[in-house]
């Protein structure tokens, strides 16, 4: 079976108009034959088709990679929907929060403030602290994006640059194109919004055992990203262990446990990454390739 590009090339070769023109001029070269323009148009068309093929495969690959995130999000958003409604918000408000924020921890923290009428300053500060880690991820993602990705596409991608989307995006080899990113963020965003709606509407439809089991899906995905990388490079393994150790320290040592979760995450990730960037710098070129 011929691909569309091959068909376009074949069309380029056997185009009847071109043959007729050759016959008419009997090989003599007149000024600029009109076939020149025709051929150029056909070649441009085949180029466009080629670009479309590329766009489509990237987009589909993105969809494929994003689907597990969608499943995980559905369950988390479901839990968020239940939580929001039980805190006194109505269904539309819960869905609006999910659609406007797309952050799990940030939204959970915002719900009591929104329902209980916390001050705007308080709201803004909470979001800043909990979500500051995204700026770290955005800087990292900016290095993975193809330089050709346009500014307007960057503005859209940034909106759904969540922990999981970032994790999957950074685990892909090479640079990332705009169609791939759109494919990647589409289903998670839909799953997140839809999951909130269903959870808010009917929190008690799903049996509790199922909700509990779905709760681990996101972490399973994280492990599937971290462990293969840690298996390949010893430095990565120790770096992750160091970060986890620091994180546990902040969780369980009495005084340190008072630091907010958002800060702990930033602090541990920054310290561990910086220490290992000094101790075991990654060889040139490996950063974008791996």
């Amino acid at each position, binding site marked *: 079976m011929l691909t569309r590009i091959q068909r376009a090339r074949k069309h380029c070769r056997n185009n009847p108009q071109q043959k007729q023109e050759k016959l008419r001029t009997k090989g003599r070269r007149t000024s600029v034959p009109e076939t020149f323009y025709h051929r150029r148009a056909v070649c441009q068309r085949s180029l466009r088709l080629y670009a479309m093929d590329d766009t489509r495969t990237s987009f589909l690959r993105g969809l494929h990679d994003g689907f*597990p995130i969608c*499943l995980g999000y559905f369950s988390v958003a479901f839990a968020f929907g239940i939580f929001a409604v039980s805190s006194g*918000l109505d269904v539309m*408000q819960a869905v*609006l929060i999910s659609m*406007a*924020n797309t952050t799990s921890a940030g*939204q959970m923290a915002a719900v009591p403030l*929104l329902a209980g*009428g*916390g001050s*705007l300053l308080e709201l*803004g500060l909470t*979001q800043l602290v909990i*979500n500051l*880690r995204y*700026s*770290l*991820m*955005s*800087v990292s993602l900016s*290095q993975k994006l193809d*330089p050709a990705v346009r500014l307007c596409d960057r*503005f859209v991608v*940034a*909106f759904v*640059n969540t922990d999981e989307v970032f*994790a999957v995006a950074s685990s892909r080899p090479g640079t990332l194109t705009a169609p791939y990113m759109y494919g990647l963020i589409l289903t998670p965003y839909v799953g997140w919004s839809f999951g909130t709606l269903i959870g808010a509407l009917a929190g008690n439809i799903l049996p*509790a*055992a199922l909700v*509990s*089991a779905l709760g*681990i899906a*996101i*972490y*399973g*995905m994280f492990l*599937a990203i*971290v*462990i*293969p990388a840690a*298996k390949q490079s010893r430095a*990565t393994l120790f*770096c*992750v262990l160091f*970060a*986890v150790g620091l*994180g546990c320290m902040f969780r369980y040592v009495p005084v340190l446990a008072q630091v907010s979760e958002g800060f*702990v*995450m930033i602090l*541990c990730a920054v310290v*561990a*990454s*910086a220490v290992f*960037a*000094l101790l075991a*710098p990654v060889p*040139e070129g*490996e*950063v974008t390739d791996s």
Partner: protein
Amino acid sequence: MTDLLSFFAGLLVCAGVTYLIRALPLVLVKHRIRNRFLCSFLYYVPYTVLGVMTVPAVFGATSSVVSAVVGFAVACLLSYWEKGLLTVAAAACIAVFCTELLLPLLSVTV
């Protein structure tokens, strides 16, 4: 009415702050970073962030610590064998579900 207004004001603040945090670095840092330290730092960031987010939060993600540990172990093993994201996530869910089915039976017999 004032309730609704204050809700939308709050929603706007939340969404605005979150979006700016995400969008500014992505839009402003357009050039390739050449500095070796920064490159290495950014290479380690995703893994450390994911590590810190997973442990110890994973042990509280399900309704019992035991099922979470089983799910965590299954996920670790499958990821070590380099299975795909969906496979690992689904297997962890199934493991948690089965453990929670079996747990009451075990506690009765013990």
